[in-house]
């Protein structure tokens, strides 16, 4: 059954009725494997005759590649294949495809996986080898001679926009500019959103605040580095095992870059040790396939942590300008922002998403956001939870807090006064469907955390965040076994517990024990197409697909019961895991359980399968409000997060523990982003902190227990009311923490991270002591 846009009407409808499985904290199906070390991640596959692949990376941030001489490496005993740019054919210009929350340009992708004309960032792949062991592979890399002509580089987005800046892509044309800049540029795109006339709005304001902010690029910092095993055979067929958020998407990318029929590649996703958006793209996989194609042996490749930092996508750093006007009674009259995002070496920063989300938590008459996508000599950015939104909303939510303070209004009351509701025109165009912005703000305001007094010296901050969430192409199948248990085959990688939540919806629909549903992620040949796990889409879109598959299965089960009883199928209903005869047949017919129908399926027509494939629409946008308390060591500038509460609209929490985990994880990543995480480059554009020692994500003891409040304003387009929950939680933390610091110290920070040296310098400056510079 294929059905686009239509929501199957399941048992759910989010009407608050009691469910047997939905809303419970069921045991996760992947739990035992994960805690016992059985779970197989990207680097855990071992094949006979497997080679080890390694990548030679550019030591320069920007350089022409005059020549690459691989002859000595090829001559080394134990080396089975060497590849360079010459092993990939170029891709046509302008072939841009939307893919999840980002867009894909294959001409850029072929250059990103293997440098062609130029090395565009330190760590850019130049060549790769496959050898019988890692030592020989490393030795072979050292024998490759590359003739570089080093070029000036640029990292800062504002500097990259200036005339005379080093040009990263000579043939770049700015998209969306009214007029061509007339010269070569690093500005890949200009976007603008909004409505009304901000000049009119500012004229109505009693108070106007205008500020500039900077944020640093931050890495997704998944614990599992990229890893894959590729195996190509002499007849041009291939298999790929990899750690990814989307094996169908990876298959498409690899087939395109290698010039293969998509169906010639069979791709299987490993368990994933974190992705957060960073595993929606390919890096090693096309190289491993190309090496395997040359060697006709399987090739395993795994990045080191250092390679992950140098060569894989963080999200953008940015320069942001925000101006907001309000009346003295707390009505926002105008909001304006200019956002300049680093894209890395290829176009594609999430600036458009940032520009759309920047003022989304407000109902505004006059609003405008302008965004620029700017090339710099850094690894191409990749998606990172709610791509673009945390950066923009850090700046806008800081200004909202400040303006509330100036007019003397409680920051949550200020937000409530301006909050959007169903039917409000969003700051980026469309009218909002059913949303829970107000409910979330009220729950935060009424929470014990917000009501409780602060200790001396502490500060409290709040911020609200918004993310769209998405639907997309999804397939699911339920295969009924002969004993009545069910195999649920999914094509969406389980990043955040979706095997649990999707099987819970299947069990709920079928009216059977959760234990009778065994969920698994099929390979790319097992199901129709599945978009990747991203955009907080899987419990939403996957849920619709699974409910549809269950309804399909129930339809067949009713048919079989009708056949068995020899009554019209319309007189059969499905309830509590059994077929029941209705309309006068009730007395004569004993209900038929799922097990009974399964046992006799050969007699009633053969195997029983329920399937559903959709392109899910109507994702429910999600708002969250965070409340955070901080303490500051005023002599060292060290900030302690002492209490943290996340309040967010989930629509419906299918598995509350997983929802809470998403809320907590977003807050923790945001704490790192706010306080310590940054990329440090030397004057040659080389990264100095390519490791977890000096790229400081929080450790467990750095964060308090993160409290969570799940607000449930059902999304009417989902059978159980689900919205996405995975991304919104990372949007508010940076502003919330900055607002808390402003509350504690009376100092407004405008640069991330708010690291100890920066905080101490600001404290000293505020005290009129200039001896400590940051």
């Amino acid at each position, binding site marked *: 059954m294929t059905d686009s846009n239509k929501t199957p009407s399941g048992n759910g409808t989010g009407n608050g009725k009691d469910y047997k499985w939905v809303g419970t904290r069921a045991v996760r199906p992947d739990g035992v494997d994960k805690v016992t070390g059985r779970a197989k991640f990207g680097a855990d596959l071992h094949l006979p005759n497997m080679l080890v692949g390694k990548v030679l990376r550019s030591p320069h941030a920007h350089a022409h590649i005059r020549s690459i001489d691989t002859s000595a490496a090829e001559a080394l005993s134990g080396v089975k294949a060497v590849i360079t740019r010459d092993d990939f054919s170029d891709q046509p210009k302008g072939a841009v495809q939307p893919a999840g929350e980002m867009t894909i340009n294959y001409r850029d992708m072929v250059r990103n996986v293997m440098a062609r004309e130029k090395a565009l960032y330190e760590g850019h792949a130049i060549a790769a080898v496959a050898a019988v062991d890692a030592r020989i592979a490393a030795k072979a890399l050292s024998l490759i001679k590359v003739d570089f002509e080093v070029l000036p580089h640029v990292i800062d987005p504002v500097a990259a926009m200036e005339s005379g800046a080093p040009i990263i892509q000579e043939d770049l044309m700015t998209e969306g500019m009214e007029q061509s800049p007339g010269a070569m540029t690093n500005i890949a795109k200009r976007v603008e959103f909004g409505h009304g006339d901000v000049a009119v709005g500012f004229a109505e304001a009693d108070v106007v605040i205008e500020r500039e902010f900077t944020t640093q690029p931050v890495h997704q910092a998944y614990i599992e580095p990229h890893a894959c095993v590729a195996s190509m055979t002499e007849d041009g067929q291939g298999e790929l095992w990899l750690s990814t958020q989307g094996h169908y998407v990876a298959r498409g990318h690899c087939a395109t870059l290698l010039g293969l029929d998509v169906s010639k590649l069979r791709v299987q996703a490993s368990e994933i040790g974190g992705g957060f958006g960073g595993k929606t793209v390919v890096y090693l996989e096309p190289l491993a396939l190309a090496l395997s194609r040359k060697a006709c042996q399987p090739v395993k490749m795994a990045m080191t942590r250092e390679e992950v930092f140098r060569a894989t996508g963080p999200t953008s750093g940015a320069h942001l300008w925000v101006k907001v006007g309000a009346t003295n009674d707390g009505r926002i009259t105008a909001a304006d922002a200019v956002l300049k995002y680093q894209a890395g070496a290829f176009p594609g920063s999430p600036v458009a998403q940032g520009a759309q989300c920047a003022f989304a938590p407000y109902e505004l008459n006059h609003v405008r956001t302008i965004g620029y996508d700017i090339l710099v000599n850094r690894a191409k950015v990749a998606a990172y939870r709610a791509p673009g939104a945390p950066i923009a909303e850090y700046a806008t939510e800081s200004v909202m807090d400040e303006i509330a303070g100036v007019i003397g209004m409680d920051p949550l009351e200020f937000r409530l006064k301006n909050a959007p509701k169903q039917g409000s025109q969003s700051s980026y165009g469309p009218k909002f469907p059913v949303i829970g912005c107000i409910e979330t703000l009220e729950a935060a305001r009424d929470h014990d955390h917000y009501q409780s007094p602060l200790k001396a010296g502490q500060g409290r901050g709040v911020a609200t965040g918004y993310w769209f969430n998405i639907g997309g192409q999804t397939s699911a199948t339920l295969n009924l076994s002969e004993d009545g248990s069910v195999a649920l085959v999914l094509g969406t990688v389980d990043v955040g517990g979706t095997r649990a939540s999707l099987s819970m919806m299947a069990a709920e629909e079928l009216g059977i024990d959760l234990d009778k549903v065994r969920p698994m992620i099929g390979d790319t040949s097992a199901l129709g197409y599945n978009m990747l796990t991203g955009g907080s889409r899987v419990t939403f879109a996957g849920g619709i697909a699974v409910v549809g598959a269950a309804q399909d299965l129930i339809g067949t089960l009713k048919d079989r019961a009708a056949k068995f009883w020899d009554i019209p199928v319309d007189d059969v209903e499905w309830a509590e895991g059994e077929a029941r005869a209705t309309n006068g047949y009730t007395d004569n017919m004993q209900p038929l359980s799922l097990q009974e129908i399964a046992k006799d399926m050969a007699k009633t027509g053969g195997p029983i399968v329920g399937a559903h494939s959709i392109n899910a629409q109507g994702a429910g946008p999600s708002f969250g409000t965070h409340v955070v308390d901080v303490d500051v060591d005023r002599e060292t500038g060290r900030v302690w997060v002492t209490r943290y509460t996340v309040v967010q609209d989930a629509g419906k929490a299918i598995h509350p523990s997983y929802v809470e985990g998403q809320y907590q994880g977003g807050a923790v990543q945001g704490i790192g982003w706010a306080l310590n995480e940054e990329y440090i480059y030397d004057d040659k554009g080389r990264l100095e902190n390519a490791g*977890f020692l000096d790229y400081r994500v929080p450790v467990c003891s750095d964060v308090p227990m993160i409290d969570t409040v799940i607000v449930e304003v059902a999304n009417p387009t989902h059978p159980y009311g689900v919205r996405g929950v995975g991304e919104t939680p990372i949007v508010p933390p940076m502003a919330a923490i900055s607002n808390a610091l402003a509350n504690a110290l009376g100092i407004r920070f405008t640069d991330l991270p708010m690291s100890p040296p920066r905080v101490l310098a600001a404290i000293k400056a505020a005290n009129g002591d200039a001896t400590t510079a940051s």
Partner: protein
Amino acid sequence: MRYEAPQTVDQAISLLAGTHGNPRVLAGGTDLLVQLRAGFIDPELIVDIKQIDETTAITAEDGGFRVGAAVSGARLKEHDTLSLLWPGVVEAADLIGSTQIQGRASMGGNLCNASPAADTVPALIAAGATCALAGPGGRREVPVEEICTGPGQTILTDGEFVVSILLPARGSRSGDAYLRFIPRTEMDIAVVGVGVSLSLGADGQCSAARVAVGAVAPTALLVPAAAEALVGGVVDDAAIDAMAAAVRAVCRPIDDKRGTVAYRIEVAGVLAGRVCRIALERAGST
């Protein structure tokens, strides 16, 4: 690459002295293995010293303790009397890494790795600890502050290694302490570290003090001027401020990914004051 685990100090010396190609001592390996895997070093021979009695024992000596160079942080912390005598040294060793690292990491390795930011080194220097070295030329006892000469550089000659570290006896009314500043709560490298050890006379005045600071110069520094600010008077706010100023005066850090010059100097003084107050309280309660 060859791996050997000799049973005696002399066997270790002959292995170390007899091999070309940069032989390396292996204690806990928490620095060495990281450096090996990162490709920073490529030694011909690795000499594991954990099978030697002298490098793995903690023994009482003249009212103090001699700690084998390869004794792990976890074992050090379990030693009750040593922890009572030199709590600052033990807390410095305990800061290293995580529970897993603690099972391996040694003070000898921390010292010989010669990182300017090594946590136990300022605490050991403040404690007045000395090292027993053994090499082809015989044995010698050297103050800890003389071991490191620069980042990754020591006075150890070819074939020579650290056998043990002596934490000396000390009188009553003495206390020591160590604090470091890191932006996180653990698993980080000191931006600044300060160790203070002091003793009080019967009159409550400071009779002896040693102050050392790490991560603000190519090696950890003993700061005699800081000690002088304390000795001979009551350790009050003014004395502590003077001591902190003396610490700041010797700092010559670099700007790097872990902190700026100005920040490190500022925080060195802040920590020195805090550490001094802890040491003072400990001295007053013994």
